[in-house]
C-alpha cells in the first residue's frame, strides 16, 4: 500500500494553491455543521463537491473511497437513530423498545449528509494535493517548519516501518515464535515484535537528529522557499470571501429563527 492517496492528474483543482483548498474545506465544513438541516449537507455535496471531483478527474477514485468509508457507518446510523432516537415523537412503526420515528430519520439524514461532506471533501483534498506541496505552502504562510518536518518524515517512514516489522516477525518465527489463529491470542505476538522494533527505530533517531542539527534544523531564521507554490490574486480574494460566507452561515440560523 502506498503511503498517500495523492492521484497525479492535470486539472484546475490540482493547480489551485493548497492553502486555498484547505480554507475551502474548512469553510465548507463550518457551513454544513452550522445549519442543522439535512438539505444543506446534500446541497453542498451535490453542488460543490461532486462538480469539483468531476473537474479534478478523480471522481471515480473518490466515489470508491467514499462508498467504502461511508456505507457501513451510514447504514448503521439510519438503523440506530431511526429506531432509538431519544427525541422521537412521530412514531411510524413500533416493536418493543424500538420505534421508527420521523425525528430519528431526519436526525440520521442530517448527520449522514454532514459526514458525507466531511469525508468526501477531505478525501478530495488529499487526492488532489501532494502532501509535500501542501506542507511547503503552509510553511510559506507561517506554519512552523517543525510541523512540516514531522508530517513529511512520517509519510516516508511508515513503509520502512512496515518492512522492519515484517522482517522482525520473520526472524522471531525462524526462532520458533508461533503466530496463533485465535485473534485474541495473537495480541501476545505484539510483545516480541514491538520490543526490537522500538529499540531499533529509536536508536536511529539520535544519528538523524545530529544530522538535522548540523544542517540548521533548530534555526528559526526565516528562509526562502526552494520551490515557490503558485498563487493568484483571485485565490487570495477567495481566501477572504469564503470565511466571510462561513461566518454568515453561523449567524444566519439565529437571525432567521429556527427555520
Amino acid at each position, binding site marked *: 500500500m502506498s503511503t498517500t*492517496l495523492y492521484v497525479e492528474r492535470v486539472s484546475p483543482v490540482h493547480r489551485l494553491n493548497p492553502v486555498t483548498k484547505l480554507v475551502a474545506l474548512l469553510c465548507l*465544513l*463550518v457551513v454544513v*455543521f*452550522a*445549519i*442543522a438541516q439535512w438539505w444543506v449537507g446534500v446541497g453542498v455535496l451535490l453542488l460543490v463537491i461532486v462538480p469539483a471531483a468531476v473537474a479534478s478527474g478523480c471522481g471515480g477514485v473518490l466515489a470508491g473511497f467514499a462508498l467504502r*468509508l461511508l456505507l457501513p*457507518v451510514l447504514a*448503521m*446510523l439510519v*438503523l*440506530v*437513530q431511526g429506531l*432509538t*432516537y*431519544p*427525541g422521537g415523537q412521530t412514531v411510524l412503526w413500533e416493536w418493543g*423498545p424500538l420505534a421508527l420515528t420521523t425525528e430519528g430519520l*431526519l*436526525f440520521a439524514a442530517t*448527520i*449522514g449528509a454532514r*459526514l458525507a461532506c*466531511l*469525508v468526501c471533501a*477531505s478525501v478530495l483534498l*488529499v487526492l488532489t494535493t501532494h*502532501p509535500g506541496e501542501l506542507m511547503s505552502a503552509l510553511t510559506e504562510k507561517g506554519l*512552523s517548519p*517543525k*510541523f512540516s*518536518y*514531522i*508530517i513529511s518524515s*512520517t*509519510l516516508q*517512514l511508515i513503509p520502512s*516501518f*512496515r518492512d522492519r*516489522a515484517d522482517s522482525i516477525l520473520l526472524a522471531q518465527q525462524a526462532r520458533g515464535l508461533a503466530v496463533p489463529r485465535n*485473534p*485474541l491470542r495473537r495480541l501476545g505476538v505484539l*510483545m516480541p515484535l*514491538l*520490543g526490537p522494533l*522500538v*529499540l531499533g*527505530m*529509536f536508536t536511529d*533517531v*539520535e544519528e*538523524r*537528529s545530529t544530522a538535522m542539527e548540523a544542517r540548521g*534544523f*533548530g534555526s528559526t*531564521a*526565516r528562509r526562502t522557499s526552494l520551490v515557490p507554490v503558485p498563487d493568484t490574486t483571485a485565490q487570495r480574494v477567495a481566501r477572504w470571501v469564503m470565511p466571510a460566507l462561513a461566518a454568515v452561515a*453561523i449567524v444566519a*440560523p439565529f437571525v432567521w429563527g429556527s427555520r
Partner: protein
Amino acid sequence: MSTTTTGQGNANRTRNLALIVIGTLIVLATYLYLVIAQPTELADNASAPAGLIAMAGYLVGAVLIAAGSIHRLSTVTIAMVPVAIALNIVVGQLVVVLALPVYLDSIGTVLISVLAGPAAGVVTGILTNVIWGLILSPSVLPFAVVQVVIGLMAGYAARYGMFRRVWLAPIAGAVTGVVAAMISAPIAAFVFGGVTAPGTGALVGMFQAWGNSLLASTTFQGLLSDPLDKLLSFTVVVLILTALPSRFLQRFPFVREYRVFRRPGVKAA
C-alpha cells in the same frame, strides 16, 4: 503557527505557556458547555449548533496546545515524533486487520510521552490523527483532541512515577481511558450521531433504547471500551520499556530528570 525566534527565552516561554493554558481552557469549556447546557440535538434547532461547537472548540483547543508544545521540544525529540506516529498508525492498523475488539492506536503516543514528556506526547497525538486522516480515513480528524489528552496524561503519569512499577501503569491507563471516553463522547454524539463504527453504534443504540440521551449513550459506550483499551496500551508500553536495556532508557533527559523508571545503579547520574 509562529515565525518568532525561540532564542528570546522568557517572552517565548510565556507565550507558549499561554497557548497551552488557553487551549486547555477552550477544550474544558467546550466539554462543560456541551454537557451542562445539553444543546437539544437537532429536531428544534433554534439553539447553538452543538456539532459545530464540539468540532470547532476541540480543534482550536488542540491546535493551540500543540502550537504551544512544539517549541519546547529539542531536535532529538522532534526526530522521535515521526517514529512514535508511525508506531501508532502501524499498530492501530494491525489491530484493525486482526479484528481485535480494541483500538490500540495510541501506543506510540504513550511511549513518547513516557520517554520525552507530555509536550512530545501532545504533538505526537494531534499529528497522528492529522496523518491518519491524510492516508487512511478522514473521520478520525475530529478526535484529534482525544490523543492530545492521552499524551498529556501519560506524560504527567510518567513524571509522577506511575511507570516506576509495572502494576501502577495499568491504573494510570485506566484513569486516562475514563477521561478520554468523556472527552470523546460529545464528538461521537454531535458530529457522528453516535455511530463511529458499526459495532460501537449498535451499543449506542442499545443505551438509547433503554431511555438514555444521545450524549449519555456515547459516554457509556466510551466508558465500556476506552479504559480497557488505554489500560492495555499503557501495559504494553511499560512491558516494552522495562524489557529494554536501561542504558537506552537513561539516554532521555526527561527520564533522567524525573526518574521515570526505578533502576538500581543508574540513579547516581
